[in-house]
């Protein structure tokens, strides 16, 4: 695919973000059935069908350049969105290597990586970057290794150090988050940063997930979905900027909800890193407008049922309880009550 594949669009001000019909078709719809509750939903992060968001380790889609521009603006206004405690530099190099090798292998037309010993040259054609540097030598890059590569990679990233039978969120690049703050969470352990989540602790979800992650193996990454709701296509819904995006929830109407309300899906994966023994946690956010989503009849029926029936504590935590009735009213127009097939893939009719 040529470089004209990448769209120019905004996630702020005039909100020109849209999904092409192809992007809608490949959207990672997160519901495999008509209801939703938390669970230890992890599966091997193996290559999926061609064209799907699982085809490659790190999906690069039509929004790439626009998302990277938005990230640069967030960082300009608030540099604390990217932090790395001193002992995490090696994990940053591990992450840089993982991303560069994956992208150069999976998208050879767009990315190249050439190595002569520790002398590496990285070419990122879409972003017009060519950089020669010495692997594991911080002074040869314009930023630290994690910041350098995540300024060129869609999705948020956190790096967890593993010690004392726990994971510690000790580094991250977080500019497209669903209302949580790296600056607040940095240095916390697994249960501590998950403290605000309702029900899941009592269900044992976090105990089991942590136990599994502590044994996560090299070369055997896993993935899971998370989802929430966002009014207007805003990537940066952070606690720090709440005044900019929170009040818009009060301005939804039946007329504008199809265009302004977005389902926000996070494709999260977990990778053991080789040199640091840390765990990388990419959190890739995908946005889809309700009016785009309802073009897939199965998804429309299912989302209606999930939103209608989801536990109010979850709707409150995810921040859409006040608009739930409106969402249900809008989505019910697309639900004729017919049964839906298991699995999340679309069935255009």
């Amino acid at each position, binding site marked *: 695919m040529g470089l004209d594949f990448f769209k120019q669009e905004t996630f702020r001000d005039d909100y020109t973000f849209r999904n092409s019909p192809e992007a809608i078709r490949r959207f990672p719809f997160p519901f495999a059935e008509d209801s939703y509750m938390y669970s230890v939903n992890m599966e091997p992060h193996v290559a999926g069908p061609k064209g799907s968001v699982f085809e490659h380790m790190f999906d690069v889609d039509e929004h790439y350049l626009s998302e990277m521009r938005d990230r640069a603006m967030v960082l300009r206004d608030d540099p604390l969105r990217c932090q790395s405690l001193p002992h995490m530099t090696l994990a940053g190099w591990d992450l840089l290597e993982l991303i560069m090798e994956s992208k150069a292998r999976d998208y050879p037309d767009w990315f190249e990586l050439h190595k002569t010993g520790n002398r590496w040259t990285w070419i990122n054609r879409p972003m017009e970057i060519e950089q020669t540097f010495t692997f594991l030598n911080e002074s040869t890059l314009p930023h630290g290794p994690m910041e350098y590569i995540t300024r060129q990679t869609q999705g948020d990233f956190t790096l967890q150090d593993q010690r004392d039978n726990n994971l510690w969120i000790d580094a991250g690049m977080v500019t497209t988050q669903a209302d949580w703050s790296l600056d607040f969470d940095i240095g916390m352990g697994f249960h501590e940063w998950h403290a605000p989540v309702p029900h899941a602790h009592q269900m044992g979800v976090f105990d089991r997930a942590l136990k599994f992650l502590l*044994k996560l193996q090299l070369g*055997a990454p896993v993935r899971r979905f998370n989802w929430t709701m966002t009014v207007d296509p805003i990537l940066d819904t952070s606690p720090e900027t709440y005044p900019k995006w929170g009040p818009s929830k009060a301005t939804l109407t039946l007329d504008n909800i199809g265009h302004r309300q977005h389902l926000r899906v996070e494709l999260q994966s977990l990778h053991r890193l080789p*040199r640091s023994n840390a765990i990388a946690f990419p959190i890739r956010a995908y946005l889809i407008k309700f009016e785009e989503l309802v073009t897939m009849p199965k998804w429309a029926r299912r989302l209606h049922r999930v939103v209608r029936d989801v536990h109010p504590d979850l709707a409150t935590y995810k921040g859409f309880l006040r608009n739930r009735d409106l969402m249900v009213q809008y989505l019910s127009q697309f639900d004729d009550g017919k049964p839906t097939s298991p699995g999340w893939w679309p069935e255009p009719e």
Partner: protein
Amino acid sequence: MSNGTARIPVTVAEVLEVNELIKRFRFVRTGGGHLPTFSGGSHVVVEMNDQGTRRLNPYSLMSDPADTSSYTISVRRDDMGRGGSLFMHRQVTPGMQMQIGPPVNLFPLDLRGRKHLMIAGGIGITPFMAMTAQLDARGERFELHYAARSRALGAYMDFLETRYGDRVHLYVDEEGQAIDLAGLLSRQPIGTHLYVCGPKPMLNWVLSTARKMGWPDGAVHSEEFLGAPVGKRFQVELAAAKKTITVEGNQSLLEAIEAAGVEAPYLCRGGACGQCETDVLHCDGHIEHNDHWLTAEQKASGTKIMTCVSRFEGKRLVVDR
């Protein structure tokens, strides 16, 4: 999901007799190419076909993590053991094709450490070979104290001394040299992390001294791989698989389960990682718990067994596999 079933085909590139007890093996990827990058302290499980008995033994990677063109391990011959080390010593020759698992690290460096103080006894030196190479390359501060019975058995003493100079301190038991542990621990700067790997008495001595001197648990790291002990033959019923199997004296319960064609999870095969924990559904007899994983209460309750190292003696044992 991660029950250690991934395998890397390797070829034995070199076998070296280091001394009368220790042999060193170098593996390259069969068909060429690099092996996975690893961190100092990692081990791999080496798969052996010992006259029809499948053995999977863990060995620390001792090569420089920066060089993934090959992996090296050292194996100490254990004449009383179940046979894994004897197989490595007697049967494994250059050119042989083998399988290993991907590297797993249960003894990682704490990268927050401002200084890394390492204490090794005997063959316990192997993880530190990789760790010191990694720390040295990053310009980190470390100090290694390495004790062996005799100079001849002190594999790698010369190598380490040449390479790291006064960052290495050697002690030869035969020559009456011993680590002044209390003195050493009292001299360490704030932010030092302590690592110890070696025979059990040494491990206990270092850990208890550190605790008595007020070292926080989080700054003290140890690794002890238990070889699965030999014992008497016993029978086990596998409830889920609906099979009754016999565990031979020189076989572990885990090996017997695998030999019966039943999939069972594991990582370390040395009683340390917890992965092979299995529910005991019925126990009429005595479980010989040989692991570091279960708590004393769990062991006493007789409701769990670690299949990689623990054994059974008695009338009837039923496990959930």
